[in-house]
């Protein structure tokens, strides 16, 4: 699936003095507040993190409240869908005008009727609502099936994605994996390889070891992250 990457980040977390006896917990809590929200600096949604506090020394900030600036190294799993990426998700609801999908269990996506290609028709089969393909008998989209769709636009606040089933390599993943190549769509295959290449490009520089501070690595400096231990 596109859009997922692991990034390394050098961060500074500011811990309130009242939490100075439980620094690691405060740091984890602060990072947890980042989860499932879109962050501009990371350009994506943080899904998971792994924290390493390398040094036992931290700088105390001078000011009204002497926050403790703890330097950490974190591995972050980021999800940053961009338009025209292909994503996979599970169908939760089928309406006459729309298909509702949930991506990675947290992001809701909706595909409008006008973005669904002509071959799919709304039908009721065996009492169940489905979108069935008129050209391929077995290609059916129903509630609970995993489908691949293309991203049209992304709403960052609630992480809602508008999707499209227009490209021919979209549809039910199960069917596509079996019949994708049989269709003779070379376009599919080339898209697939370019997908793989793109993914490798993104993850490539990140797999080098941590000690390296070369400029083409995606590490970000984060300043001004405050944490308050209560509520």
């Amino acid at each position: 699936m596109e859009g997922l990457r692991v990034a390394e980040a050098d961060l500074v977390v500011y811990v309130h003095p009242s939490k100075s006896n439980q620094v690691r917990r405060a740091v984890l809590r602060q990072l947890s507040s980042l989860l499932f929200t879109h962050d501009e600096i990371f350009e994506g949604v943080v899904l998971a993190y792994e924290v390493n506090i390398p040094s036992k020394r931290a700088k105390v900030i001078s000011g009204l409240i002497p926050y403790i600036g703890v330097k950490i190294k974190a591995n972050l799993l980021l999800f940053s869908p961009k338009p025209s990426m292909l994503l996979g998700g599970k169908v939760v609801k089928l309406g006459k005008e729309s298909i509702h999908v949930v991506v990675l269990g947290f992001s809701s996506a909706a595909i409008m009727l006008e973005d669904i290609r002509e071959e799919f028709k709304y039908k009721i089969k065996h009492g169940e609502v489905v979108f069935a393909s008129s050209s391929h008998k077995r290609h059916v989209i129903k509630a609970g099936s995993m489908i691949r769709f293309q991203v049209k636009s992304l709403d960052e606040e609630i992480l809602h994605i508008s999707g499209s089933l227009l490209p021919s390599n979209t549809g039910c993943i199960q069917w596509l994996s079996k019949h994708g190549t049989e269709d003779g769509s070379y376009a599919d295959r080339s898209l697939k390889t370019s997908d793989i290449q793109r993914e490798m490009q993104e993850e490539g520089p990140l797999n080098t070891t941590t000690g390296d501070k070369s400029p083409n690595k995606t590490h970000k400096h984060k300043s001004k992250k405050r944490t308050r231990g209560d509520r």
Partner: protein
Amino acid sequence: MGVELQGYDFPVGVVEDGYLSDSEAFASVINVINGVRMAPSLVPQSNKEQYDYLVTVVNPGKRIGQDDEALMATALKALSRAVFRLDAVYHGSLLNNIFMSSIWDYGLDARNALLELITTLATVPDKFLDNCLYTLLHNLRPPSRLKAPFNQSKRWLMRKEEVRREVYLALNCINTLVPLAPARLKILIEKCMPRFTEDKYVLMTYVEGILGLERNEIGKFLGSTVLARVVDLLIDLDVNIPWEDILQEEPNKGIFAIELGECNEDDEYTTIPNMDTLGLVKNTFADKLDGLMVVACEHLKSCSESGHLLEVFERLSEIFQRAMLKLHKSKFTQFLMFYACSLDPDTCGLKFAIMLTDIFISKDEDPDSRMKAIAYLASYLARAKFIPSSLVASILKRLVDWCFEYCQLQDSWVNKISPQADRVFYSGCQAVMYILCFRLRSICDVPQLKQLLFHLPVDSILHHPVLDPLKVCLPLIVQEFLRQAQTARLFKKPMAHSYDNSLESEFSKAFGGIQRLDMFFPFDPYLLKESDRFMRPNFEFWDMVKTTYSDYDSSEGEDSEGEDELKDLGPSNFPKDNDDEDDLDLKIDKMSITPNPSFLHQIATNFDQSSQMPARIRPSQSPPSPRHGFLYTKKEERLDDQKI
């Protein structure tokens, strides 16, 4: 074109041709919506009229007939398909009307259609999710026009259940479609909580609804938000009940006075004033708090029945530490914790006691919190029937050990009592004494626990030459404690303590501080009527307590009017004549007894009261009530028998 034109005239079309098919309805609705999708000044009049008509159809706002409801349901279903074409600006009034709907008024079809619409609206990227959630939460309140006599009718109760179920279902649907919705729901719950000044029925219905939501599947995403808000509401009501309504002229004069209000007609001797004279009953805040406590306790009970009590208890503990503990003398809200503990004494009861002990002993907490914690602990251990003596004994050990260490650390050159500086210590001592007043007898009844207790350095703490807690703590408690301790021979040498009948000394005022934490007994008898039934079975009234100096079975006192109680009278009052009565562990003949003032008066005045009932501030003036009178006559006979 012809079909569409006909579609515009909704009423005519419906009546004449039967009902519109879904696709026709959909097509016409789409047209109406598209018709106003432009700057308001450019909209043609006919389009505007159609649109306004649609707006009124969608939410008539009053009771409507069957046909109108069917029309509304059709329109709503059509709109459900058209949600993605709705615009927040152009279709503002339509959306407003939808979000203002109260689904209580409508029949099943219309309700379902409306909820379907709201659920679908929620999936439109970021525009309407908050509004949809707000509408659903708002529908947990009863409709405003529902007045008192009708809200108890069966029809409304059934409707309430249905509506609630449907709202929960809708919220769960939204949760499936938009997995991050609970995060917004949390924020909205915090905002939408009703204020404590609202009507009692509204408050009760809403809180019941929101607690039901917490029990629901979606509740596990909400964390402790719901409980925290509910407790905040309870606290708001609690602090608004004025103390004057509860206390009588002399506040707290009878810590150990008779507490069972209903069987005693003497107002003076009760800490619970008789219900007729109680100003508390008429207080609206108390009334609301009462109702809400009932709702909250029912919620706890159903959590316990479904096996989730422990999680709820953990959240409640945290809320307690954060909110209630810091509160200055909350009156009834803490009984929520009491009830929760009573539902599962072995786990929850234990945890609560340990939590309070830990707060008292911890060095990280501020002195006020520690004093409040120990006051809670003392009152809790004294009053909770469901706490076994073994737990009480082990906690006493911890407290006494802490006090002992504190004593060791005292500088020997300081020879003046400074209650303010050592206030945590004094509150600890007072707590130990208070707990023992209630529990000494039951601890002594178990040999191992008695051993444990007697090995504790209570003596050296209470008789510490410098700190001298007996002078500083509340005299009433000290007096009662010494009396019981004497009978139980807790101290190696008997002590003559001047019976100081004053309520408080200068010293106790000093250590209590401005908040009078020396007189803070949070679990004193519960005064709210309706919710009392949850607390009463587990609450230990002072009358029921078996003290060491009187050992008839007082729990039967109310019913059996006397036969069983007569055989065992306080041994301290009969130094010689009780050979046939010692089924007690106490070796009476070895006890050197200082003359008990009550013994001297026993024939003349209300003998039964001085031996059965604990310390009083002044001799009783009133004639004994019928119950006591009966005992009195019987005992007189007994005395005559034994005299010779």
